[in-house]
């Protein structure tokens, strides 16, 4: 196997999270009416960002071991 799959997935999730959370901070709050008043972009973007870093961490740790 060439590389640990957690690295690209982690990176992608981190980018997704950053994009969503930033958009959530800057976007017009009225678009969150449809998500029942919750700023899903900001909240879920933050979750994705953290998950991305967790995946990156484990991917790198596994890479360092071998």
């Amino acid at each position, binding site marked *: 196997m060439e*590389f640990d799959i957690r690295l*690209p*997935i982690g990176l992608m999730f981190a980018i997704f999270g950053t994009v969503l959370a930033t958009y*959530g901070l800057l976007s017009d709050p009225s678009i969150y009416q449809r*998500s029942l008043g919750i700023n899903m972009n900001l909240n*879920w973007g933050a979750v*994705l960002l953290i998950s991305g870093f967790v995946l990156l961490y484990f991917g790198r740790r596994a890479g360092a071991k071998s």
Partner: protein
Amino acid sequence: MLIQLSWIDFLLLAIYAVFTLGVGFALKRSINSSDDFFLSGRSIPAWITGLAFLSANLGAQEVIGMAASGAKYGMMTSHFYWVGAVPAMVFVGVFMIPFYYGSKARSVPEYLKMRFDEKTRGLNAVSFAVMTIFSSGISMYAMGLLLESLLGWNHHFSIWFSGAFVLAYILLGGLTSAIYNEVLQFFLIVAGFIPLVFLGLRDVGGWAGLTARLEKVSTSNGYGPGAYTKAWAYMGSADQNPMGVEWFGLVMGLGFVLSFGYWCTDFLVVQRAMAANSMSAARRTPLIAAVPKMLFPFLVILPGMIAIALTYQSGSSSFALPKKLDGTFNYDLAIPMMMVQYFPSGMLGLGLTALLASFMSGMAGNVTAFNTVWTYDIYQAYIKKDGDDKHYLNVGRQATVFGIVASVGAAYLAASFNNIMDMLQLVFAFVNAPLFATFMLGMFWKRATGHGAFTGLLSGTIAAAIHHGLTLPGHAVVGIKGGWLGAIKMYPSEMAQNFWTAIWAWSTCFVVTIIVSLLTKPKPGSELKGLVYSLTPKQSEEGLSWYQKPGIVGIGVLVLIVILNLIFL
């Protein structure tokens, strides 16, 4: 109603596309032999093959079809997971993978050649090749239709574009590319569906609000109050529940025959376990997959149940399932319409990416299984036996192109059923149902012979066709739904008809295989070592920790599944 995507949604889609193709390019260097291309060089760790094992099946039929069934049948849809898939996954991991992986067969049909004979392999290889093309075509069709109705994208464009996209990443990285994308897609589906379920549940007033509304759905459809929220309570007879199936037909037809047939013998999923880096990893592949699998009803069935509940009594939003021109609900739109309802720009892009990823990887799974079977079991077996490895690698690449083009053709054919799941079950019933009897006898009865297996398979498939031709689900017209030999029996639903078709096919194959085997000469025991249970030395589990032992993990999974069934009894 057409949805306008904003730039942020397209940005997320573009990021996904770049990563998918990027992974393909990064893997290109590691493809040097046909073994790398078709089997990932048998080098992938168990957790990755496990997630791929799960995701290879998580294509269009799963996410769209399961939510559609959730809206149509309610909680009973969980039987597809808790009676069907999970027990079968435990069985294949504990009992069957040792023969697949240990025999060094490169495909499921090749195992059949080792265990039985050439004609049994040929029959299986050809029918499997046709089936994968159809499955792949169905997912393309579903995606094209969805994107057209939702976003106004031309469906011809969607079909050809997704075909080209999948083609590119499989040609680059072979099976590894497909497996990596399946893992990526697993995470994307989870990331896209958790917020959907969260918002849906919030809208409907939590579990309590959902059950209260679903009681209304049950009673206004003429069932007992819990028919949409209980998995078992209304299974006593077929007319008490929306699925129109009684417990025996369900447990035997769906549980024992169809699910075991699919998860234990379908090369699409078994191929993922064959790519694992050790016997222990191969055996744990389906067991690792079983754990998220048993939780998936909460991600893919629950949205459908929420959708139908809100349709009968709205929540704080105005969500309702759209209807088709003929006035019936368009169940297949449950997931996409909920995304449109609840997701603002941004999240909508994420949800759409998750859906597209699942369509793509469903197609990729089929195409990677197809090109392997085509190359090893059809081309190498019948067309050119003595090519060098480079030649077969090339043939595999050409087969990938052919597979995609044929899928596109199948996509244009796949338009007549309203619920994708029903159509797939029908195809599986004809081809897969007898198959499990063949494998069971092949792996656990050393007396079973090639002639027996072949005639058994053939008569099982014919029995399926005859049963389908003689029966008809209620209110259906004679034709593709059955009855073309003269409808002598009516079933309450298509589902019930499919399950019983499977039961007939399995039983016929089982009996015919035994009779013909007893009348023909068996292979000598020396040729069956490693292929049959009684002639294979037991796997040594020394030095493995408890969580690496398939037996122990398998029992743990089964205990959890019993608990889940009891909770939703």
